[in-house]
């Protein structure tokens, strides 16, 4: 009478709270959004099923698609700046912090991480003031070092505004890749490093040849976090430049475009259906990006077991 295996109820019981909460606040709204994008309002103020016609408007109508591609392009640049500036600086800082000869490492670590816990509203407002051509300290500081001629009202110029805001965001969030890489660097066993030293690999070449390959999986995770975070970004642009993402839509990213469309702005009335369409497109973009990473990159990363 070895019998049937008992149904293991406790698994379901223990999973239930997380599944229920996650379903209620993530999965249901997500499908609600996808569903909303397939409907539209008729002139008689009822909603009707329109299939993919909202997507046809978004990608086919030159005005909608112009705004969408502009936002996507800006968003891509926003991401590129983060990948080229934030993550390398994060890795560099982590490498410096993990150096045993550095004094006051805990102080630097905290100081660099603090902006991350500040509110976007504070960061946006403070940087707007710093960079203000009227009251800001940026023109004065440049003047002290004789570079006043380099100053421009960056946030007000089409050519610079987005890059300036991306760098503000980098300033705010550089602590996160730094912390993750720092943790990864600390987890490298001393034996590996000692073995490397025995073989004469020290200093810079030790970093490139031994440490970097070992922290590559962490860098991959950071890249994907940056990607998802950047393509969902909204707050900083909204705080600094408003919903119209000026000057001349040069800082308009998908988040602000979605906000303007969904909730409306000034005389423009909100359009939940087109808003949901944009949200769905954003979801698709992020999904594709994450899939490329998961299947194209992560499976090829070599892992080392110690």
């Amino acid at each position: 009478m070895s019998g049937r295996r008992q149904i293991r109820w406790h698994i379901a019981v223990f999973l239930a709270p997380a599944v229920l909460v996650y379903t209620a606040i993530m999965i249901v709204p997500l499908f609600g959004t996808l569903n909303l994008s397939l409907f539209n309002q008729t002139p008689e103020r009822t909603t009707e099923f329109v299939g993919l016609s909202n997507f046809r408007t978004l990608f086919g109508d030159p005005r909608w698609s112009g705004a969408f591609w502009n936002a996507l392009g800006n968003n891509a640049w926003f991401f590129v700046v983060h990948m080229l500036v934030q993550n390398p600086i994060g890795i560099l800082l982590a490498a410096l912090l993990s150096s045993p000869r550095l004094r006051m490492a805990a102080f630097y670590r905290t100081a660099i991480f603090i902006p991350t816990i500040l509110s976007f509203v504070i960061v946006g407002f403070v940087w707007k003031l710093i960079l203000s051509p009227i009251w800001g300290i940026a023109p004065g500081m440049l003047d002290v070092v004789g570079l006043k001629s380099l100053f421009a009202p960056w946030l007000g110029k089409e050519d610079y505004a987005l890059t300036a805001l991306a760098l503000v965001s980098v300033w705010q969030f550089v602590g996160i890749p730094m912390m993750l890489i720092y943790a990864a660097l600390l987890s490298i066993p001393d034996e590996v490093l000692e073995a490397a030293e025995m073989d004469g690999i020290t200093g810079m070449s030790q970093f490139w040849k031994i440490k970097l390959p070992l922290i590559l999986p962490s860098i991959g995770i950071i890249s994907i976090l940056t990607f998802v975070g950047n393509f969902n970004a909204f707050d900083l642009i909204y705080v600094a430049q408003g919903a119209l993402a000026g000057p001349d839509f040069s800082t308009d990213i998908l988040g602000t475009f979605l906000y303007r469309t969904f909730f409306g702005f000034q005389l423009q009335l909100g359009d939940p259906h087109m808003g949901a369409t944009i949200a769905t497109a954003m979801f698709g973009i992020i999904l594709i990006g994450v899939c490329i990473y998961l299947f194209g990159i992560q499976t090829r990363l070599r892992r080392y077991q110690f």
Partner: protein
Amino acid sequence: MTTRTLRIALLTSTLLAGAAQAQDVTLTIESWRNDDLTIWQDTIIPAFEAQNPGIKVVFAPSAPAEYNAVLNSKLDAGSAGDLITCRPFDASLELYNKGKLADLTSLAAMANFSPVAKSAWQTDDGAATFCVPMASVIHGFIYNADAFAQLGIEVPKTEAEFFAALDKIKADGTYIPMAMGTNDQWEAATMGYNNIGPNYWKGEEGRLALIKGEQKLTDPQWVAPFTQLAKWKDYLGDGFEAQTYPDSQNLFTLGRAAIYPAGSWEISGFNAQAQFKMGAFPPPVAAAGDTCYISDHTDIALGLNAASPNADQAKVFLEWVGSPEFATLYANALPGFFSLNSTPVEMADPLAQEFVSWRDKCQSTIRSTYQILSRGTPNLENETWNASANVIKGTETPEAAAERLQAGLASWFAPQQ
């Protein structure tokens, strides 16, 4: 036994307290005028509550830029207040059509308002009025009178005098000639294009012709204001591209700028901040003696949330808002918000008197983009913000901007096709 008695006592007292509170109805007002919070709390609401015991009123404003979005979400969710401050024209009309705002045509106080005053909160056929008009705002220029006296500048009446004055201020160098930035964009359209524009498109004549499709935004009278705006660039402060609306207000009230393209709603704030004498002049005309036109924009009204459980008490409040008593109280508490009530209102503030005096010598109109023309996508008002800011910065020519606006309007507005 003691515990039970205590429990009953507690329960009874709670119930009694609840009953006592239920006699007082609290009305909540949704508004974007967060600057006016203290005036409502200290002046307007106490005056009403003194006459109407049993009705309490709470003024609950949100930030101007978010108001429409916040209000729409609250109305959809059923959590909006009893009284809704109404934006003019389509934003409120849409709410009425969706059944969110109640029909107030039968309100006795509606008799106190002229058809023009009510037009911003009526259905297109004028059959139903859904908000009680509160105030309009007038556009013009506020100037630093001390600076003008110091530099020996007369108040400009014509375009030539206007630019001569700006040149003189610039040459002197003590003051920034004009305080305006393009960072927030809306000032360029509201205090720029729609401020000086009526002189060119002849106020109502041009505005209505545009709605009928008889004029186009590419016609000379609609491009001319852009051509003027393009000339403003040289007179704005350093780095005006990143200058925000509060920056401009501060530059002027700190006495660092001489002229401020304004809306009359600035008056109370400026009176409190500025340490110098101020004056105001209407948008300069092309040649001396031309008829002047001003933007006297019906801006703010109060409506009733159709889902309000306290509709009867809210109507009592709305009747009071439509009364001459409220008009006097409001216009004097907030100089610069001019009453729309047919009964003339005495105002004490000299700057407000200056603004309102233009109603007698100039023709009044409202902002060209507000009625009907901003119903579609792309939204003409929002596009005008962007175009005006671009023209001032010089990144788009007046002609190109006008062409873009016209193409956008024609893409959905049948009379322009």
